[in-house]
Structures are given as C-alpha cells and as structure tokens.
C-alpha cells in the first residue's frame, strides 16, 4: 500500500501551493480586509477625500493642517493626559487589588469574581451608568463625597474634572488587569519567600525584592497594552459627550475630545477622510514608537526568571 512505502521514505517536499491553499482564507482576509485598506488609507492621507468624490492629491497638506489645528493639539493633550496619568495609576490599582485578592481568606473566589465583574459589563452600559453616578447634584458619588465632607466637583460639566471622571470609568473595569496580575502572583516561587524570610526580610522588602521582579514581565505586557488602549480611547468619552445627531461635540471646553474622537469627527462629521487617515497614520506611528521605546527600556527593569 501507498502508506507503507511512504513511511520508509524521506518525506518529499510538498508543493508550496497546497500550504498556501490551506491558509488562503486567512491570507485573503489579511490582504483584502486588512493590508489593502491600511495601504489605501496611507494613500488617502495624502489626498483630499470626502467619501463621495474621487480623492485629490494634496501631498503633505493634511499633516501640515493638523499641526496648525488647535483641536488636534487639544486632542493630543487630552489623550496624553489620559495615558500618562491613567495607565500607571491603573496598573498600580490593579496590582493592589491583586495583592489584596491574594490574601488567603475565606470566600476568596467570590471576591475575585466580584472584582472581575465590572470588566464584563459592556462599555456602553457602563458609561451611561456612570453618567448618572457623576451627576453633580443627584449622583451617588457626590452624595458620598458630601457626606464625608469632601468637595463635590461638577464632574461632567467642569473641564477640570471630566478627564478624571473618564479615568474612574476606565479603572472601574480594572478587574481584567487584576486577574492577570493575580495569576502572575501565583507563579512566584514560594521558596524565594521562604529564603527571604530566613534572611529576615520584612514585608516591603519581600515585595520589592521578590514579588515585584517576578511581576515585571507581566507589567511590561500590561503597560504596552494599557498605553495602546489609552491612546485609542473612544467609547467612554464619545458616550459622555454625544447628545444628539451627527454633530461634533468634544465635551465642556473640548476637554473630552480625545485623539480618536477628533479623528472620528474629521472622518464622519466633517467628511474629511484625508485628514482622518493622516491622523490614523500619525497614531499608528506614535504607538509603534512608544511600544519600541517601552521595549527598549524594559531591559533595565524587566526581570525574566533564569530557568
């Protein structure tokens, strides 16, 4: 039989087309639905294009216009604010939560489930819910703040407080990050803690010299994902500001006009697809650069176990 004879022979090189054929659904998908549109968007970024008429080549005009657009610069500031303050604090909160969940107490699985729960609430639902919580006069948050004698900011109307409000919304869904940290905590070898205890290390020293180094690879991963997510933040700010029809609204004082929201307005409200494409490419490059930068610095602070 064929199988018997084949088994003894050196495997013949199969023609490449078979492999290509089998992976063609993915390849076609990539080329037609991903790579194609991405490249076309690069072309559009050098054109004036309104979706309905053929694009007109304008060279670097879109990029030059953006740099002079106060709303573009404002959106960069707003997004940087959310990323620079939101991501590190978010990671710190998630880590604290994970450490707390790691305490051997009764009912631990229940607490873990509770912490993770908000992460499965759809962002649209959550944002609308928070709109109520943040209401300056009737919102629960200000009622709590007022009852303990703290100031009650006008969260969603005062440009100074809108971004902190968004950060609170994003931190609410921190359970996913905390769960990953929790898994990493479980991986820290027990004998290291025992050795540290023998050496007389206190709680902080055990965390700083044993736990934290072991968590750095996971932190690197979460940091990169967090930065990428923060730079693309759209849904909560859009939902907090959108009140009617197809109008561009950036919240009070444009304080919630994030980068992707300005991109969206350019594309679908002002029908300036060229400018929107330019914005998308700038964002793409910035994310690439930031990710490389974080990876480069990671050699200094990320410790991989030497096994």
């Amino acid at each position, binding site marked *: 039989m064929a199988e018997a004879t084949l088994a003894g022979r050196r495997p013949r090189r199969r023609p490449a087309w078979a492999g290509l054929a089998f992976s063609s659904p993915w390849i076609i998908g990539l080329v037609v639905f991903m790579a194609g549109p991405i490249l076309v968007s690069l072309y559009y970024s050098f054109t004036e294009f309104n979706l309905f008429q053929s694009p007109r080549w304008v060279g670097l005009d879109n990029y030059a216009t953006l740099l002079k657009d106060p709303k573009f610069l404002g959106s960069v500031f707003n997004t940087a604010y959310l990323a620079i303050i939101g991501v590190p604090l978010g990671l710190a909160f998630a880590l604290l939560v994970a450490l707390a969940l790691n305490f051997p107490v009764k009912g631990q699985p229940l607490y873990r489930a509770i912490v993770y729960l908000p992460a499965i609430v759809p962002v649209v639902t959550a944002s*609308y819910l928070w709109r109520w919580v943040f209401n300056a006069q009737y919102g629960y948050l200000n009622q709590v703040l007022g009852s303990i004698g703290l100031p009650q900011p*006008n969260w969603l109307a*005062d440009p100074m407080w809108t971004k902190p409000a968004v950060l609170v919304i994003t931190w609410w869904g921190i359970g996913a990050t905390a769960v990953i940290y929790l898994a990493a905590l479980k991986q820290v070898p027990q004998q290291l803690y025992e050795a540290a205890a023998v050496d007389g290390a206190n709680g902080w020293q055990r965390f700083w010299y044993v736990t934290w180094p072991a968590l750095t690879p996971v932190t690197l991963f979460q940091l990169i994902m967090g930065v990428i997510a923060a730079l693309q933040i759209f849904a909560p700010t859009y939902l907090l500001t959108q009140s*009617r*029809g*197809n109008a561009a609204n950036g919240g009070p004082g444009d304080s919630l006009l994030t980068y992707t929201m300005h991109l969206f307005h350019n594309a679908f409200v*002002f029908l300036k697809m060229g400018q929107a494409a330019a914005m998308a490419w700038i964002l793409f490059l910035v994310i690439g650069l930031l990710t490389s930068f974080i990876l480069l610095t990671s050699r200094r602070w990320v410790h991989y176990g030497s096994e």
Partner: protein
Amino acid sequence: MSGPGQLSRRRFVGMGIAAAGLGGLAACSKGSSSSSGGGKVTLRFSYLWTGQEAKALEKVIKKFNQSQSKIVVKGVSNPDAQAQLAAMTGSKGAFDISDNFGSATGAWAEKGVIRSLDDYIKKDSFDLGDFTDSSMAQCRYKDQVYQLPIAVNNSALFYNKKLFAAAGVQKPPTTTSEWAEAIGKLTKTDSKGRLTQLGLAGTSGAGADYRLLGVTHGGKWYDNGKPTPEDPGNIAGANFYVENVIKKYGIKEIERFVSGFGDYQSPQNPFYQGKLAMVVDGEWQPSFIKEFAPDLDWGVVPVPYPDDRPELAKTNLVAPGTFFIPSNSQHPDEAWEFMKYLVSKEAMLSFTKALSNLPARKSLLQDPAYKSITNFDLFLDLLASKNATAIPSEPSLAQYTADLATADDKITRMTKTPAQAYAQVAKAAKSYG
C-alpha cells in the same frame, strides 16, 4: 435654549443609543428586491424619525400607497445618521429617498451626494412659492434646489406665569432691557447664596442658544457664503447672556444649579419644575408641556429685541426638516413622485400636526387644524414673519458649527469674551476651504 442648531429633540431621542452602537457603518441595511410583482416599483424610504413620529409618517405612507397603482413605498425607521451617510456611498443606494435637515444641503450638494431637484421642478412646473422663504433658504445651494421642507422648527421665549406673578413682573419682556430686568427679578437664592431659581438659562445646560441670540441682535453667521462670526450683532447677543446671567450669578454656581436639572423630556424638566422662570425653546414644547406638565401656567412670546432696534422684533431662526433623493437612488423618478406627496398640503398638515412641528407651507400657517395646540399660533406667526431667517446651508456648516460650539463653551465659562472667542473662530474659518 438648546445650544447651537435647533433640532427637534424628539427626533433624536433614539439617536444617541443608535450611535452608541458605533457599528453604524455596518448597519446600512441592504434593501430587499427593489421592484416587486404586479409591475409596481418598490420605493425604499429610510427615515430618521422614530417612535410616535415614525407612526405619524407611516400613516402618510399608507395613504400614499392606497392612492397608487405604480409605486409601493416601504418605510424603514433608522435614526442612525451615520448609517444614512454610509448608505449613500457606492453606486447602489440602500434607499431611494430619505430625510435630514436643511443644514445638510450645502455639504451634500457640493459633494454630489444628493440630487438636484431642479429638472423635476421644471418638468412638473412644481410651485415652490408656497414654501416659506426661510425654509427654502436652507434647501438651496448655488441657486439649485436639493431638498424640500416639511416640518419646521423655530423657537421663542417661554415663561412661567406663576413665577412672574410671584416676582411682581406684570408682563413678559418685549425688549432686551425688560428681559434683563425680568431675569434679575426672577432669579432667587437661598440664605447661603445658593441659586434656587434662575430667571433664564439653557434648557439643559448653562449656555444659551448663541446662534439665535446673535440674529435677534441683528447679527449674521454667514455673509455671501463666508462665515462672519465676528458680526457685531453676534457678539452683542452673546454679551447679553454673559452680562445678565453668567457674570451676575457666577458660572460655578450656575453650573451646580444646572447640573441638578432633570431630563429634558420628562416631568422633571427644569422649566416645568419652576427652577427656570424663562427658557428659549422650540415649537414642540406646547405638546410636551401638555404631556408632561399639564398644570403648568405658562406663556410664550417672541425672543425680545434690542430697545433701539424695534425693526428686529419677531426675529427667529428656522430649521426645516427636509426630504432628499440620494444620488445613488435606484428609482429617483418615483422618489420625486413620492416626495411631491410628502410635502403636499394634505400630508404636511397631517404629519406636522401629529409632531406639533410647524408646516413649511405658507398656506398652512393659518390652518385652523393647529388651533388645538396651545399657543402654537405664536410660532406660526414667527415663521410667517419677515424676520424669520435661517443659517445658510454652506458646505462648511458642520465644521463651523463645531468651532462655534467650542467658542460658545468658552463664552459660557468666561474663559474668553464673546469678541475673543468669535475672533478665534474667524481665524479657524479661513481654512474651511
């Protein structure tokens, strides 16, 4: 005051949620077979209205279908403006006729998104003379007609009679000095200096409808197709509100007070609750009040004019809801036949009456059918006034509106004076192209 751009709020109730899906682009539905049996052409009519208004429109559609042997109209309520736009790209449209606002005319006409109706109008000798001038103004772009109006919005000054009597204000204001005085008398604070009642504010925010205040002070937002945000009238209009409300009571305190306002479309509306003694709002309010606050003792007058400019009395901004045929309509001829019916006196009356919106036809402004709506005659009268005007529908309007909204916000927050804020818009407007 409802902020820039007067849109019927009812029409957009479902819209936030629809937009929240963010999948709007993908939502453009493929129309089913475009022609059905019996030789009838199926016309696909996608509209932004929802709920009660959609029901009123379906009635109109039903009547049209009964009268027809050649066309069957299939109506679909789709309040997602993004989906509407997406459906108009490409060569085969997902619908043959749809609705939007006059404010879209310029941007769409310039990009070839919608059809010019001029040939049809000429062919049928269709009479445009009966449509109010201010409504038609937003339907034209470069001397061609692209849309036809049906339900029109404008606004006026609502006041709470009980609060007026309690404050000893004998009659509603007609001039801006009377208005300023009334605002002062009708604003109340408690012993801690906290606002308990405001003479005037926006319907749901601290800012005013600065577009309207601009024109009631003799301003213009466009002149010959060029944005003119720095028109002295526009600046005077914003200054009126800043001087008499924002500066007087403090933006922080106003914002705190305003943040406690209940939902606009509910019995908790601050005007119904007596938290706001006066508010500039639209012609749909009479029926809203009937529904949500039937016991409210209220009146409505034109927005006051500056004392030294009586010729500006009854100035109001008109925003028409409109019908258009997209360039990629599969059955434009049939769509035109249906559009003629939609804006006919019969259909317009039945639809606008159901919505408590204003009819776009002059011949309907005196129609007794509207008598049953309390105080509606004032809005009809304003629409008939020679001072009824509309913001021209230029291609740059969406961006101009967004930039003006940013400026309005600075004005309300007093980070910029009206003159400074609108000077910034004038600078940005140079790049609209």
